[in-house]
């Protein structure tokens, strides 16, 4: 047995998976030991592969932002002419006439712009922050397996990184390809870029809307600072901050106006937990003594009922039950229909609800066995696992 010979035998065994027949018993024993050591690495490798898959959507969004930021901006080019005299500048040829015409044209264009788009204020962008969990709706304008662009009535164009997203048709059935241009969709995901005109979301699901979603009167959203005369409306967008403590919603008021509402994340979480897909749900807005507004779900409307079956979207649903058997990436939820394996998506939001726990305590590993919970997300038909995007905890039963 020489090292060179053993090197070659090992290499052949690695390539073929079979110990070469010419290996003598001592060499065979040694090769078996070496192959066993290689086997020890495989389990860890698979775990890291899953981790890489989970990290990829956020990394992709970051890289796409980087690419977008590196594109050269258009350069303004000015021509330099010899400086004419004052008189020539004032009365020079047709310049005055041209300038007057140009000014008139610009004025007309400005009036037209203001008439058709009253404002495109910063309020629109402030609806979202980076790392928000968001549910929004819009119409698909571009569609590719890894990237979908939708036109949102609230935000304008929104780019959705779709590689890690589930595609659902109106019946909630998983599809291989993203919704086609022209389809009205609900998007769930994590906001990666909240800048005006560059809004990007790591898509978790793109679902063809099962019911028509309210659009309001087309005016941009305005931040709600005091309760309106009729403090009710229909949810058009919801966002929950990274730490689960703040939330925002765009509510279409009875008069058609859009209101951007800073809401208590707990009350928003209850609406999400009660519906799975809250867009289209009728809510009452309640004042909270100077704090963020509270949302209370109202019966009726286009949104899903309390069982998540009436309206809403069948692919974006909810489960309720009691948490059992927590694992590193999820838990088993004991529901009325039996146990369901729940896996937590990267970027999921957990809201303490009535537990009295803080988000930090929960993320630090507080044992949640026995707590009731409502989870919103979707069922992965390939594995039968429920993929949770939002978990709202309740008290121990």
């Amino acid at each position, binding site marked *: 047995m020489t090292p060179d010979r*053993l090197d070659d035998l090992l290499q052949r065994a690695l390539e073929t998976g079979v110990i070469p027949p010419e290996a003598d018993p001592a060499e065979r024993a040694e090769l078996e*030991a070496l192959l*066993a050591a290689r086997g020890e690495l495989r389990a860890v490798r698979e775990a890291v592969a899953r981790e890489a898959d989970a990290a990829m959507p956020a990394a992709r969004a970051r890289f796409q932002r980087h690419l977008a930021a590196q594109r050269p901006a258009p350069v303004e080019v000015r021509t330099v002419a010899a400086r004419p005299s004052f008189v020539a500048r004032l009365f020079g040829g047709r310049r005055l006439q041209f300038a007057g015409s140009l000014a008139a044209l610009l004025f007309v264009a400005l009036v037209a712009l203001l008439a058709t788009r009253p404002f495109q204020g910063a309020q629109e962008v402030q609806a979202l922050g980076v790392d928000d969990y968001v549910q929004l709706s819009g119409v698909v304008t571009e569609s590719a397996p890894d990237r979908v662009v939708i036109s949102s009535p609230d935000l304008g164009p929104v780019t959705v990184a779709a*590689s890690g997203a589930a595609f659902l048709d109106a019946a909630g059935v998983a599809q291989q390809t993203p919704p086609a241009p022209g389809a009205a969709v609900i998007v769930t995901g994590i906001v990666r870029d909240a800048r005006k005109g560059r809004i990007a979301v790591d898509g978790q699901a793109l679902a063809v809307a099962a019911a028509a979603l309210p659009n309001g009167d087309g005016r941009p959203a305005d931040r709600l600072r005091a309760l309106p005369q009729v403090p009710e409306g229909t949810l058009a967008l919801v966002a929950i901050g990274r730490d689960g403590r703040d939330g925002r919603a765009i509510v279409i008021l009875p008069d058609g106006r859009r209101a951007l509402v800073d809401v208590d994340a707990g009350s928003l979480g209850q609406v999400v937990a009660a519906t799975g897909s809250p867009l289209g749900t009728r809510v009452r807005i309640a004042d909270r003594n100077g704090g963020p507004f509270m949302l209370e779900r109202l019966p009726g409307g286009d949104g899903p009922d309390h069982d998540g079956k009436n309206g809403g979207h069948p692919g974006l649903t909810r489960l309720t039950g009691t948490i059992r058997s927590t694992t*590193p990436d999820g838990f088993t939820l004991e529901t009325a229909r039996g146990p369901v394996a729940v896996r937590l998506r990267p970027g999921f939001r957990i809201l303490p609800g009535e537990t009295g726990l803080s988000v930090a305590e929960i993320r630090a590993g507080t044992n949640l066995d026995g707590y009731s919970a409502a989870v919103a997300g979707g069922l992965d038909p390939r594995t039968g696992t429920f993929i949770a995007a939002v978990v709202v905890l309740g008290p121990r039963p």
Partner: protein
Amino acid sequence: MRESGERDHDHPAGHADDAELAARAARRDPAAWESLFERHYRSIYTYLRFRLANPHEAEDLAAQVFETAYARAETFDYRGVPIQAWLLAIARNLARDVIKKRIRRGPSDDLEAADLTGQLAEADPAPAVHLRSDLARALAELTEDQREVVRLRFILDKSVAETAILMERSEDAVKNLQRRALAALQRALGGEHYLSGGGAS
């Protein structure tokens, strides 16, 4: 775990594909870079994860690899060298920088502890991965060259030829190194006595 296209350069079509992609990447064609990202991100992340232990650090550094590569796009001279080799070289350099910074920060951040698969991961709250502590300790027994050959050959599934390019060694040296690495790993895991002795590489 092999990602699609990882072995493209083993075939003539893969060469042509890589060459065409490299040419477009050198022109900073965004679509080419998105394609490179899709092909190679998992490998780069995995490589870094096995060097740095901390998943958040690996994620951040993996993103930096592509950003750095994009910034240096015009410097990549495609002559049959796999694009992934270039990206891995950037990853290796960035990881070294991180480890050096740790050493400079203080004696408690010792290189070996930082450069192992498991020791930081054990304390890491990331739920997705629970690296085995016994394997981490076993890997600690290996030399850096042995760990590198483990990462490239058995974690990233690189061929002997590719590993030789990446490590700037001969193929025979890689074969020898991989045997010694596996033998050292087996010994450290408490396996049966290694008959012919691994020795230091």
